[in-house]
């Protein structure tokens, strides 16, 4: 009498459908999971003043001038120094030094949501002025209004990126 076996084209089609779904899942996962790039810590020193010179902001702070003017009250912002390091096994690593001003990275760890928890030391001369712990998102800068210098003020900026 007749058999009930499934024809080869139907089996092949089902296999193709499952393979397509599996391939899509792999591609989507590969795009969703970020690649493990090394963490980099960046810092800069800005001189905020009311002099007539044009602002000279680093590329990472492009577009921040209006907000800096609104928050700190100064018209002009000049880049004094900037430095970036690759973070590996942090333990009080100097991040930026300019004159008597030193920024040290005390600890840094990544959070599951893509941010970073950072512990920072601000040292002026040989005195530790401030220790702070903060959480930042990828590339989001944290601003520290530092000491006065000449006709303006020192602004310290720190940002972390992966």
């Amino acid at each position, binding site marked *: *009498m*007749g058999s*009930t076996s499934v024809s080869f*084209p*139907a089996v092949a*089609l089902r296999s*193709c*459908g499952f393979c*397509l*779904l599996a391939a*899509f*899942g792999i591609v*989507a996962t590969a*795009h*969703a999971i970020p690649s493990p790039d090394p963490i980099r810590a960046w810092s800069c*020193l800005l*001189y905020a003043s009311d002099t007539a010179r044009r602002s000279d902001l680093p590329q990472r*702070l492009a*577009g*921040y001038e209006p*907000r800096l003017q609104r*928050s*700190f009250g100064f018209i002009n912002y000049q880049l*004094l*120094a*900037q*430095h970036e390091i690759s973070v590996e096994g942090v333990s009080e690593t100097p991040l*930026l*030094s*300019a*004159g*008597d*001003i030193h920024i040290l990275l005390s600890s840094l760890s990544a959070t599951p949501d893509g*941010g970073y928890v950072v512990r920072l030391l601000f040292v*002026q*001369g040989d*005195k*530790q*002025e*401030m*220790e*702070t*712990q*903060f*959480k*930042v*998102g*990828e590339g*989001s*800068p*944290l*601003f*520290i*209004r*530092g*000491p*006065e*210098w*000449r006709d303006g003020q*020192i602004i310290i900026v720190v940002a972390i990126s992966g």
Partner: protein
Amino acid sequence: MKTFEERFTAWLDGVLDGEELRCFERENPLLIQHKVEYLKLRSLLRNRDYRPVLGNPDFFTSQIMSEIRGETAVGPRLNKPSLWFGLPRLAWGGVGVLSIGLALFVVLIPRGNNSDPRANYVAEVLNTKTADPKVKATVENQKDMTIIKLEGLNRVPPQQDLHH
């Protein structure tokens, strides 16, 4: 009481006798006239050599096999998958699932706008500590800027070069 067929067969075979014979012949007078023909017919039926030879002895067997073959051929045709616009339903199902997956991928996987610094800005001060009691630290949280304001710091000498 014997049936008519039993008595007739016994009468043809000659085993009916006595009162039964007289009674049967009285009830069926016409059968006596045709007894010779009945005996001839019985002889023909019992003679195996007289059976006619059929030209197609397997006629009925071949008819049955043809019907079986016909039903078998129809069976697989009934299981043929239906087609929509030339593609099997399974293929359309795969296309549909793939489309839904791609749509979900586009909608759910975030793609940040790195050109705008205000997009996805996250900066939160967890704690701040100053060593000098005359130095005070306050945190100002704005939508796209977080500032730690230190007050009471010593002024940096103006002759000091902070360029690096």
